[in-house]
């Protein structure tokens, strides 16, 4: 049925099948086969793949605003981090009195700072559904306010990119501060349970990977549906000729806002899935460098195709894992070089390269 939905779109079908395979096979093999078997995937592999999939979801969210709406957001990492913090706050409250200081209510870092009571914005995060709601609401609200102000003032192009970068940098500085109440420099870590299940156990890790895979597949299908509605066509038209769309009677700022908020929520979800799998969230996720990296993932994969973003995110991150293992100091140079080469030689990314090749064969 899903494949039927993707009719006439071979590439999307393949990506979907690959994702389904990864989501189902790896966790199951991890659980069934024991170490030493050829089919065994280690816990390390499971969490690594899980991380890649959250990055793929993040890249997908950027492709929606950048590839389809033409808004080059250099602060997409901020929404990812906010979603991550919302999840992190839930996981912190799950620790309960098992922290180093054994306080039943306050997380360790608050006891350490000699705080007497829980700040108001931490209340409610012990309830899982509320925390999940915040995973979407907080990034969405930030995107709404930011988008409302900038799109209405018709800030576009490089100016918007720079402002979005400033936004994530400002959040980075704010979250570094202990007084903010988010654990400052160290962020939130030492998580124990999720929904009462031990985060370190193989089964929970396997299920987290499955959830991530399902979230990515759902995000992919929903995004793909959106870009094929009339709204998607208006958004594409805005990317190509913004002022012309206005003269057709469309409120361009509302469309941009819609896509931007949706994309921020998707990024927030990615962040929320990322945190329990890597076990920590700290302010470095807000750093502009991370947001720039997301742009490189999408550029490498090929923007404006959705599945390209997924492929790009996975390939670049795999490269990063390999490279930082072999030559840790040259990774950033490699990343920069990749970005320059991609921009010059394959402006449509790997997807563009593939399309050109298949067209030549026809």
């Amino acid at each position, binding site marked *: 049925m899903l494949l039927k939905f993707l009719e006439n779109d071979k590439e999307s079908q393949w990506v979907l099948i690959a994702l389904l395979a990864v989501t189902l096979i790896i966790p199951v093999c991890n659980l069934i086969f024991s170490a030493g078997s050829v089919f065994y995937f280690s816990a390390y592999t499971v969490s690594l793949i899980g991380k890649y999939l959250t990055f793929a979801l993040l890249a997908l969210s950027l492709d929606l605003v950048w590839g389809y709406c033409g808004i080059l957001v250099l602060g997409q990492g901020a929404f990812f981090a906010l979603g991550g913090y919302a999840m992190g706050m839930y996981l912190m409250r799950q620790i309960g009195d098992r922290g180093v200081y054994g306080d039943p209510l306050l997380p360790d870092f608050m006891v350490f700072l000699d705080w007497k009571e829980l700040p108001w914005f931490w209340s409610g995060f012990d309830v899982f559904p509320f925390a999940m709601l915040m995973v979407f609401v907080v990034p969405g609200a930030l995107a709404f306010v930011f988008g409302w102000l900038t799109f209405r003032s018709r800030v576009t192009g490089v100016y918007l990119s720079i402002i979005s970068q400033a936004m994530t940098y400002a959040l980075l500085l704010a979250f570094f501060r202990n007084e903010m109440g988010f654990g400052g420099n160290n962020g939130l870590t030492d998580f124990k349970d999720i929904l009462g299940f031990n985060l370190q156990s193989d089964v929970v890790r396997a299920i987290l990977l499955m959830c991530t895979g399902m979230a990515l597949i759902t995000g992919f299908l929903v995004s793909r549906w959106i870009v094929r509605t009339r709204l998607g*066509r208006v958004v594409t038209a805005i990317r190509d000729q913004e002022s012309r769309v206005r003269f057709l*009677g469309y409120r*361009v700022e509302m469309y941009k806002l819609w896509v931007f908020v949706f994309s921020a929520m998707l990024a927030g979800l990615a962040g929320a899935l990322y945190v329990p799998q890597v076990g920590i969230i700290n302010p470095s996720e807000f750093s502009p460098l991370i947001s720039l990296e997301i742009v490189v993932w999408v550029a490498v994969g090929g923007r404006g195709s959705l599945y390209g973003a997924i492929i790009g995110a996975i390939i670049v991150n795999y490269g990063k894992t390999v490279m930082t293992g072999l030559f840790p100091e040259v990774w950033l140079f490699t990343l920069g070089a990749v970005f320059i080469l991609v921009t010059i030689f394959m402006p449509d990314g790997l997807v563009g390269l593939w399309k050109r090749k298949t067209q030549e064969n026809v």
Partner: protein
Amino acid sequence: MINNAKEPVLNRYQSFSFMNRTPVSDKKLDVSHKTVLYMEDVSVSFDGFKALNNLSLYIDDGELRCLIGPNGAGKTTLMDVITGKTRPDSGSVYFGQSIDLLQMDEPAIAQAGICRKFQKPSVFENLTVFENLELSMKAHKGAWITLFATLTGEQRDRIDEVLEIIGITSLRGQLAGILSHGQKQWLEIGMLLIQEPRVMLVDEPVAGMTHQEIDRTAELLLSLQGKHSVVVVEHDMEFVRSIAKKVTVLHEGSVLTEGTMDEVQNDPRVIQVYLGE
């Protein structure tokens, strides 16, 4: 209708006007005086250069009006003012008796029924011809509504009808980017038609067209009068002559003269403006 303009604080629709700078006019178009567009004493200046200088212009309902004038006479600026792209420094612009266009932004003006074709053909090159028309169609233009919008059979027929009129039915599934210059011009005219506007502002419709295409364009524009008011800006005098009943000549940002093509062409001031001292 109570006029609260003098007491803005008492008008709850006005006190937060900074939040809602550009309301869509809910007033009905009133053309009881036969005039659909009023421009009175409109002035626009860019860095001291007066693009429009106390210009006054009235367009009748259903009329086909041609605007001519040398480069820099203010023709495009005039269209920018009507469609909300440029705010005049002074003067007033009304759509019918009641709708104040200076209070509205571009989308509101377009939704009210004033549509524009640009000098440079600006179709959406990454969408198909059909999709270009679909987006231009008169419909609800809110984001949530377009997310779930589907075409009714009636709307499909309307698009096909317009494709027929502009003569590119065979290209309906092609990307607009591959069309020839003339075909893009036609597609853009189609995008105007499908909006069913009350007023069409058409900037240089025949630039880059072949003779045959020009003749067909003239025919099309002539067939529109009565149903729509059409304002055409064009440099091609032969074309203007073939369609115009009434011609307005602009010069240095104001109206130099108005009349039939013959009257205008024999006006010594017009000759002077075009041929120089």
